[in-house]
């Protein structure tokens, strides 16, 4: 068994197919021989019985006459069957109680059956004739007297010859079939295992970092499905790898810019290039601003990493309208500075089941974005409505909007519709990604609608407490 397990799948399939086919052939052969032998011998027995009965019908009781003997003798001469008429009492086991030291043609048991009028069938070696036979013994009865027997037999050798001839044919056929079986079995096994081998090689290449590999899908069966799944996996891995690279590039890029600001301004200050105190202060402010940006960036990255892991939400029922109002208050000064109007259309009856701190983060990120892109004198509208079991929160701005392509990429890390402008506006490029993750954790939905020049609307659906 251990040896079998050590074999390759192809060898196992090959061996199994070959073994089963050979077993089937052997069984078929055994059944064929059995049926043949039975049918043949049964046929012979029936023929002998019929022939014997026809002869026995000529016996009319009493002592066996010469005429009857002659009849039997003539039939014996012209028939293929050996027909023996026995009437010697000793051969008929008549003397048996006296323990006669003589092998009779029939045994005591057979004599009893013949006396009862039954016929006796013989098959196998018969000492009387010193050969293998198939025979029938028919009693010649005169009431209770066994006057004689008709022993009809056919030498079994002829039957065995037929079987022997068949055996040669079957043996030759069997050997030929065996070779075909081995060949076909190997082909089938190869056909079945070839895609698996390809997949194994492909998997190895993937493990070595080559995600471009693709397995050829030749069939629609389980192996074909596996190949398809493998290709999808390789594709997903390639995509993920790309995203990872992009992410790293983004992170380093995002950090490099503020770092170079900090490094440049601080060097200028240290070198004493800037003598003017007002100028020095301005440089210090710039260094501070860039340090803050890096701090925000690191904080957002940490948040996102946590949210993408197993972040535990502290869910509690809370009034979404109240939370919006409280958050809006924090933006009041900034709005006034930028001359942006915040319009609230809130349903105070809606109680959301969620983590208020995280939802506040959602609101802040979305309002930050809205405020960032809304021009001076513009409006931001925040609305809450009930949609079946959900609370729909809508934040609409009247900013520059974005293209369809950009809309699709919204939520990707460090994606900005306008990189330079965004950095200028102070965003980290992770806000929407964080929002999406929080909404997802709450079991809610988010989608964006936007049109260039007309602004962007964000729709966030959160589960209502009543619905639970």
């Amino acid at each position, binding site marked *: 068994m251990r040896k079998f397990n050590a074999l390759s799948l192809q060898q196992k399939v090959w061996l199994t197919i070959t073994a089963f086919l050979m077993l089937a052939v052997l069984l078929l052969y055994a059944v064929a021989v059995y049926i043949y032998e039975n049918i043949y011998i049964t046929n012979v027995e029936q023929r002998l019985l019929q022939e014997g009965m026809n002869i026995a019908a000529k016996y009319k009781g009493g002592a066996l006459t010469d005429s009857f003997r002659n009849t039997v003798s003539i039939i014996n001469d012209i028939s293929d069957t050996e027909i023996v008429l026995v009437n*010697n*009492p*000793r051969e008929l086991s008549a003397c048996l*109680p006296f*323990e006669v030291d*003589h092998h009779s043609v029939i045994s005591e048991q057979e004599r009893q059956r013949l006396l009862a009028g039954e016929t006796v069938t013989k098959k196998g070696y018969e000492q009387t004739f010193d050969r293998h036979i198939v025979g029938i013994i028919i009693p010649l009865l005169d009431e*209770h*007297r066994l006057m004689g027997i008709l022993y009809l037999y056919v030498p079994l050798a002829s039957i065995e010859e037929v079987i022997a001839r068949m055996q040669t044919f079957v043996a030759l056929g069997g050997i030929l079939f065996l070779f075909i079986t081995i060949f076909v079995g190997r082909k089938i096994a190869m056909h079945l295992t070839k895609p698996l081998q390809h997949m194994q090689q492909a998997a190895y290449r993937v493990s070595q970092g080559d995600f471009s590999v693709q397995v050829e899908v030749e069939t629609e069966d389980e192996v074909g499905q596996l190949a398809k799944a493998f290709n999808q996996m390789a594709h997903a891995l390639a995509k993920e790898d790309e995203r990872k690279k992009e992410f790293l590039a983004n992170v380093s890029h995002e950090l490099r810019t503020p770092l170079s600001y900090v490094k440049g301004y601080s060097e200028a200050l240290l070198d004493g290039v800037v003598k003017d105190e007002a100028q020095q202060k301005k440089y210090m402010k710039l260094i501070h601003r860039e340090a803050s940006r890096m701090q925000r960036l690191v904080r957002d990255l940490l948040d996102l990493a946590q949210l993408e892991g197993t972040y535990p939400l502290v869910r509690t029922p809370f009034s979404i309208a109240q939370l919006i109002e409280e958050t809006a208050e924090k933006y009041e000064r900034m709005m006034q500075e930028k001359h942006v109007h915040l319009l609230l259309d809130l349903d105070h009856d809606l109680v959301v089941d969620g983590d208020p701190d995280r939802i506040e983060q959602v609101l802040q990120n979305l309002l930050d974005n809205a405020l960032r892109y809304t021009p001076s004198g513009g409006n931001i509208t925040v609305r809450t409505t009930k949609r079946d079991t959900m609370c729909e929160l809508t934040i609409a701005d009247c900013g520059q909007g974005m293209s369809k392509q950009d809309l699709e990429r919204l939520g990707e890390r460090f994606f900005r519709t306008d990189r330079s402008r965004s950095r200028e506006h102070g965003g980290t490029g992770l806000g929407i990604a964080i929002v999406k993750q929080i909404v997802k954790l709450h079991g809610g939905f988010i989608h964006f609608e936007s049109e260039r020049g007309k602004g962007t609307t964000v729709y966030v659906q959160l589960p209502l407490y009543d619905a639970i």
Partner: protein
Amino acid sequence: MRIRLSILLIIVLLTSCTPQTYTPINREQAVVGVVNIKEQSLSFLDYNTKKLLATWPLKQPITKAVLLPDEDTIILFGQDMDEMIAYTLSTGKETKRWSVHKGVTDVLATERELLVVNEKKGTVSIMTFDGKVTDTIHTAPSPFAIVEDDKHRQWIVIHFKDGAISFIDQATKRVKRTVDTLDSAVIGLVVTETDELWVGGHGGGANVQQEVFVHSLVDGRMIARVPAKTMPIQFLQSDQSIYVLCHGSNMLYTFNPKTKRMINARDIGANPFAMTKVKDEIAIASYDSNELVFVDDKTLKQTKTVPVGNGPFYVFFRDAKEE
């Protein structure tokens, strides 16, 4: 509970030790007894009514039964039995059993003793009626049957395998002469008036015996061959004739003892093995048809056929006790 069990056990043991009791055969009845070897039983028929009186299911491989001179005791034995058993007919009880060597084929009961022929041992043992061996006579191989010749003070033993006759002197209890005869001989008949011994049997090998061999009682030489087809295996003598039963041809013949000419012939039964004289009838055991056939001793015509047990092989007659 334990006491009850013990009592039960004792009863079982006692019953198993107690010899089997069979249906008693009234001493006042004339009966014909038949040994059925296939079913290993004894059948008793009332001679007068020819009806079955009783069957003793002995379940022992007995081949023959010998009636003792008291006419109430039978001794049962068989070639494959290592004991001989005596039963009293009038009580149906076993009276004695004693060990013997396997191979007992014939027993001759004289007035005083039993002569037990053992084919396997090649001996004739002289025993008392209760089984004590007083003398053992060694004979030629395969002794099969024994007959008494009082006139010449000798016992004659018929040998089965080698086809021989041994003459044993009653006085010296030694074999005085052994002569050849037909093969597979099974029976001898002493014909006193002619000083002849008629010998019958199966014949050797594939040869089927077609004649009775007649030997001299005086010197053992063969005097004549009497045609009797086929396989004469049983003889009887009456005043006028000798009866010869042939199992190979199912024939019963009568011969004149002096002229040895056939008087009468009749085919009887199916594979008949044994016969006995029953008053003015002869009872013949028809082995294959499991019947007892009665024939008139003069005409040989069948008078009655009575079904008996399976495989009737030996038959004997016990007359009623006269008051």
